[in-house]
Structures are given as C-alpha cells and as structure tokens.
C-alpha cells in the first residue's frame, strides 16, 4: 500500500512540472504584458513596474525565479491588486469553495447512491424508470441552466430561498449546493445502479440470502461494498468537475470563492493570479485522484495486486 502511494506521488511530480512549465510559458507568450493593456500609463511607470515584477529579465530567468519562489510556497504578488499576494487571495477564498464543494459532494453522493440503489432493487419497473429518467434530466441540464432556473422558481416566484450570497442569510447555501451537486448526483445514480445490478447477480449474494439474512443486511453489508466501486472510482474525476463547476455556480450566486476569483482573474488578465490558481487547482485535482485511487484499493483488495494501478 505504501509503495503504491509513494509510486503515485512520484508519478505526480512530472505532471506538476509540466503544468507549471506549460502555464508559465503560455502566459509569457501572450501578446502584451500585464501593464500594457491598461490606460495610458507613463513609460517610466511601466518600466518601474516591470522592474519590480522582474518582467525586464529574460524569460528563462523569470522562470527560474518563479520556480524558486514556488518551491518556498510563494505564488508571487497579484498584478491587478497591488499590495496583495496571490497566496493571500487563494487562501482567503479557499474556505468558501471547499465548503460549497463539500455540500455539493454530499448532495451528489447521498441522493445519487439512494436513487441508484432504489432503482437497482427493482430493475425495469417504475421504481427504476422514474429515478433514472430524473437522472437523465440532471445529466442533460448544465449547471449554468439549472442554477438560474432554480433561482427563478424558488427564489423569485416562490420566494422560498435567497438567490445569492454565501452565509449572509440562512438558507442561501441550499441552492448553490444543489446546483453544483445535481449533475454529479445524476451520474452517481447511474453508476451505482449499474454497479448494484452487476453485484446482485453474484454468487455471494445468493449465498448471503441462502443463509437467511434479511434483505436489508444483504444489501447494506454485502452488495453495497461491491456495487459502489464504480462510484468511488468516479469521485476523483468528479472532484475536478466540481472545481470547474464552481466557476459557474459562484458566478451565478455571487459567492466570493476561488472559482469566481479565477474567472475574474481570467477576465482581468491577472497573470500571476491565473498562474497561481492553475497550479493550486492542479495540485488539488492530482491529490484527489490519488485519494480516490487509494480509497478504491482499500475497498477492493483485488486492485492491490494489479500493477501500479495505471487504470482510471
């Protein structure tokens, strides 16, 4: 197990290196510097700014400096918000996004697994078709459409829930969490239905029933463990999707999180901020993929004996 984890961590290093290098050179190949697009600024001010941010040095030297700073965990200063560092801005908004992501994940897993298991218990009946049709709607309804529609119905017409903000008014976290989690709930419902259907035909389930175990024990103790394997494998990629989804959801609901910051930085061409968040997102995505793999091997010992676990 330890070997597996350290192997995967070692594998993550070249990936991260590629991310950092590619992002750096992409940004530095962009036409115009970060200060040239603005209003007319005196030439010497630009020069001073360039000197301050080392933009007057050759690119490779800037690259080495950046790598050096990065090794010490320093993402550098923000170009658009003078006096604030990228670190400050990332960690200031990280909590909000993490909370949103956590709630969305809870919505997705609880609703998804419940719906999937319920559907798999009586395949090809109404109990199967209804949740699965709803799941299909969830998959075909992108978050940037679902969010506004929920706001329109529950926020504006019914006036049950607040339509924006985060933690200001009670209940304002409900709609964003549902919006972000809905399509993952739908995927998880399909995955857990498929997994459960396959497991329920296995011999050991028949054995468990033959022993006279009550049906709910058979399902909860015996079938779920195998049936949820596809769901666990999906959690890593789902997390990456949640991050991207947070761009939209935080924009719609005006939540001061990392996703909204990233979109704003992209529009402002705040290059250090884009670079910092890109690297930060990459690290978290890689870590969560690793976690999801570890969880999968922990639940299914068969995977431990396969080489390296390159699948996923």
């Amino acid at each position: 197990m330890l070997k597996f984890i350290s192997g995967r961590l070692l594998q993550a290093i070249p990936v991260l290196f590629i991310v950092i290098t590619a992002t750096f050179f992409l940004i530095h190949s962009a036409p115009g510097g970060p200060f040239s697009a603005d209003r007319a600024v005196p030439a010497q001010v630009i020069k001073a700014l360039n000197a301050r941010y080392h933009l007057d040095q050759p690119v490779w030297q800037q690259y080495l400096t950046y790598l050096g700073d990065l090794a010490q965990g320093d993402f550098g200063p923000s170009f658009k918000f003078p006096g604030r560092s990228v670190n400050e801005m990332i960690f200031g908004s990280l909590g909000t996004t993490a909370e949103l992501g956590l709630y969305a994940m809870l919505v997705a897993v609880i609703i998804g697994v419940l719906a999937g298991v319920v559907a798999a218990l009586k395949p090809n009946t109404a109990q199967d078709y209804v949740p699965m049709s709803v799941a299909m709607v969830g998959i075909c309804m992108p978050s940037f459409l679902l969010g506004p529609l929920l706001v329109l119905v529950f926020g504006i017409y019914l006036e049950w829930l607040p339509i924006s903000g985060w933690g200001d008014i009670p209940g304002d976290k409900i709609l964003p969490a549902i919006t972000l989690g809905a399509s993952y709930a739908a995927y998880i419902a399909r995955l857990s239905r498929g997994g459960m259907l396959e497991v329920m035909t296995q011999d050991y389930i028949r054995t468990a029933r033959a022993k006279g175990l009550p049906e709910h024990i058979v399902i909860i103790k015996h079938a779920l463990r195998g049936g949820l394997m596809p769901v666990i494998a999906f959690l890593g990629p789902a997390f990456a999707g949640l991050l991207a989804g947070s761009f939209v959801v935080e924009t719609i609901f005006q939540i001061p999180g990392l996703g909204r910051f990233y979109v704003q930085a992209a529009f402002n061409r705040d290059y250090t901020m884009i670079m910092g968040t890109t690297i930060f997102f990459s690290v978290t995505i890689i870590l969560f993929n690793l976690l999801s793999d570890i969880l999968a091997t922990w639940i299914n010992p068969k995977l431990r004996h396969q080489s390296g676990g390159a699948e996923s």
Partner: protein
Amino acid sequence: MSEAIAVYKQAEQGSSLWQDAWHRLQKNKLALCGLMVLILEIILALLTPWLAPYGYEQQDLALGAAPPSMEHWLGTDTLGRDMLTRIMYGGRVSLMVGFIATAVALLIGVVYGAVAGYMGGKVDALMMRLVDILYALPFMIFIILLMVIFGQNILLLFLAIGAVEWLTMARIVRGQVLSLRQQEYIEAAISIGLGPWTIIRRHIIPNTLGPVIVYTTLTIPSVMLLEAFLSFLGLGIQPPQSSWGLLISYGVETMEEYPWLLIYPGLKLSITLFALNFLGDGLRDALDPRASKD
C-alpha cells in the same frame, strides 16, 4: 457524424453484426427518437438561412423584449430581435462546434490508439504513459487559459476542445486493437506481406468502429456542453456570433423580467443533449449487448 452514419449504413448491408445492431436499435424507442430529433436539428441548422423567419441582425427597438406571439413564436430579446431566429442561428454554431471538435478528437484518438495498440511493447507503454500524464492535467483550466491568452477564436476553441477529448478515445481504441491483434486474420495479413500501416487502415480501424461510434455520440454532447459552459462564462463564442450557451448567458441576465429569453435556448440545448445521450446509450446497447449500462 453524417460520415459515421454513412459508414454505418454501408456496413449494415454486408455484415450481420451491423444488421443485428440496427434491429436492436430499432427496438429502442428512446434512441430512435433521439436519432430523429438529431437529424431534424441537422437539417434545420443546414437550412437556417432560408427557414429563419427574420434576419439574424434584424432589430425592432420599438418592440423591445416581447413575450411569444403570432409574429414572434418564441418572443423577442431586449433589442427586439426574433428569438426563434437567434436560437436557429445559435444552433448552427453549437452543433458545428460539437461535430468539428468531436471530429478532431476522433481523428487524433483513433490514429493514436490504433498505432499504440498495434505497435505494442515499449512504443505502446510510452504512448500510453503520455496519455496517463495528459489525463492528470486539469484541462478545463487549460482551455480557459488558452481562450484568455489567445483571444476568443472559434478555431482555437475547436482545437482546444478536440485536444482534450481525444484521450479517452485513444484508450478505447488501443484496448480494442490489443485484443484484435491476436486474431488469426491479422496474422494472415502479416503473412501475405502487408505493411503495418495498411493493416491498421484496412483491418484494425474498421473493426474498432463499434465502440468508436458509441463513444463519438457520447462525446458530442459533452463537447457541446463544454462550449456552452465557456460561452456562458464569456470565454467561448463571441458576439455578434451566437450559440446556445451565449443565449443562455444573456437570458440569465434578464430572466426576472423576460424569462422566455432563458427558457427557450435552455430548452433547446437540453433537448439536443437528451437526444444525443439517448442515441449514444441506445447505440451502446445495440452494438455491444453485453456492455453494462452504467
């Protein structure tokens, strides 16, 4: 896509596998509905310049945003432009992005996967290693980065999306090819002196078509979703061009006063994604009855 259908139709006459698949697909009402909706949409998109009731840029500022009526079936936007017309033109762009970016992914993925699977050994290991590494990259973020740095260029959008989506295709094809390689008719082809490229083109690629078609139909909706997502954020298609994602993003801004500006383009996008997903699921069941439905 139309090419894929043509190949599909052609193959259908010769081999019983395709006939079987077609019969199974015909029994799947949802998939057939999806296919029909899709064909209809493609025809509509092709004929839009002749069918659209109004000009694309034709404004009626005096009218402003009006709810659906006899003159404007789906209402008008804040500048008095006919929504039906705008949705039809937006559909052209959305569908085009979906098909072209998928075609890019298809081309790269199939060739890459076929070569890796056929070569095997070290070449395969190296090529798949690269895919593993690329898989781990946060591509959504990279696409946003590309769009920000190089401007919102529609060609770049095709390439960027296509460059992301080919990875899974390459994996599927490689797996398929690995098992095909063991077959005796490939050995026969080698023994009569055919070169590897000819074998890949004549024998390997046609035999991987099934899973490739299925995955293609499932890639198109995810590509369209990606385009809509980027356009919604303001990073994809730029005005005066239009796409469903862009129309939705305008609709969101004014949804309190003029909800139809959000609902109709949203409905159109959802119906299209529905149709593609049902068709993809149906094709998967039809072409590989053993494949589990996830």
